[in-house]
């Protein structure tokens, strides 16, 4: 289960078109599906575990773990990532059974200070390195279990999305979204509530897994 200690050569994906490996501090459950190691091209985390991908989860082509040195991302069981851009310098949690559509942006940091002069200093350094590796302020993102994010959704630093919520396509989420609600728009606003699935807890299909 803990693949973090496996030698690098065994950290390749047999079906991968990209000649990369899974970084040492990334834990992928053996039952999870990772389409390509290209998703780690921007990965720089030095945390003990920088990305953890749970049982039965999948991350398809286009997903990018753009994780900074101190960033930690966790992807819950049966979560589905379809080309999300995960920009993380602190912490992004994605709950179990959460579905994330294409082109979604989850960012716990702007990678840029609001102060104009500080931004100039950052860009002057970046002119030499051609990378934005400076640590900038970050606030964790928490996306609960059983959430569904529509395509092109942006989730801003510090946002918590409650269990069972649905975020409509192209919404930009600046404020917390309560559990079991539907939110849409830019900025996103709650437009209705959903029933919690207490009555579905004993669903047979799920209990077999």
């Amino acid at each position: 289960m803990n693949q973090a200690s496996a030698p690098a050569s065994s950290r390749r994906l047999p079906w991968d078109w990209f000649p990369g490996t899974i970084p040492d501090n990334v834990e992928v459950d053996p039952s999870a599906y990772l389409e390509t190691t290209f998703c780690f091209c921007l990965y720089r985390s030095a945390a003990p575990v920088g990305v953890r991908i749970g049982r039965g989860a999948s991350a398809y082509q286009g997903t990018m773990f753009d994780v900074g040195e101190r960033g930690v991302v966790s992807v819950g069981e049966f979560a589905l990532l379809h080309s999300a851009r995960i920009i993380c310098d602190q912490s992004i949690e994605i709950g179990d059974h959460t579905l994330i559509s294409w082109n979604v942006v989850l960012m716990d940091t702007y990678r840029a200070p609001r102060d104009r002069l500080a931004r100039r200093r950052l860009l002057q350094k970046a002119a030499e390195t051609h990378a934005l590796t400076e640590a900038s302020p970050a606030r964790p993102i928490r996306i609960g279990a059983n959430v569904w994010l529509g395509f092109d959704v942006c989730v801003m630093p510090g946002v918590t999305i409650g269990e069972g919520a649905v975020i409509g396509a192209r919404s930009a989420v600046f404020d917390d979204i309560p559990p079991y609600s539907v939110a849409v728009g830019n900025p996103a606003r709650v437009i209705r509530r959903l029933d919690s699935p207490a009555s579905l807890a004993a669903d047979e299909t799920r209990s077999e897994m």
Partner: protein
Amino acid sequence: MSGRSETTSAAVLPPGRWADGMLPAGVSLGGGTLVKGDFAFKRFLSRLPDGLVIGCGCTMDGARFAIGENGRVSIGDHCYFTNAVLLCERELRIGNFVMIGWNVTIADTDFHPISPAQRLVDAEACSPLGKGRPRPPIASHPVVIEDDVYIGPAATILKGLTIGAGAWIEPGAVVTADVPAGARVLGNPARIVGAAEPEEPR
């Protein structure tokens, strides 16, 4: 393509041609400027000698320069663009220290006419059967982005707009009106929600 040029011009290919590692004619890069991404010039069609001029110390990581025959784009010094899409039929002027996030679109044109009758003509002119047929006039107005502007991921900047110096465009914003210098905007359509730089020290 990974082009890094210490000189001011590297005209190698005619407009509309594009190949790995080569810069089209009309493109000049300042010293220490990096252009990265296989598709940067795939839709670069400008025939102007200054179709794309980029200053010094810039990073264009995955940016795409879709510039029409008469389009002209200028970018200042120390800019950092990640996967931005610049669509230009006329003019796009970008200042110094401008940051543009992932999947941002900036367009100085509507691409097609608004009038339904004109759009019928345009659809046929653009079709495989419309070779050589003139397209109807299409609105395009220059876009100006002043110094120190920050544009967050997935934002959209539409034609004819000026984004004032130091403005902060939140991710996902669809900007349909001028943004005054130093303002912070968000939403679709984007609205001013405060100042780019907070009063209290951060």
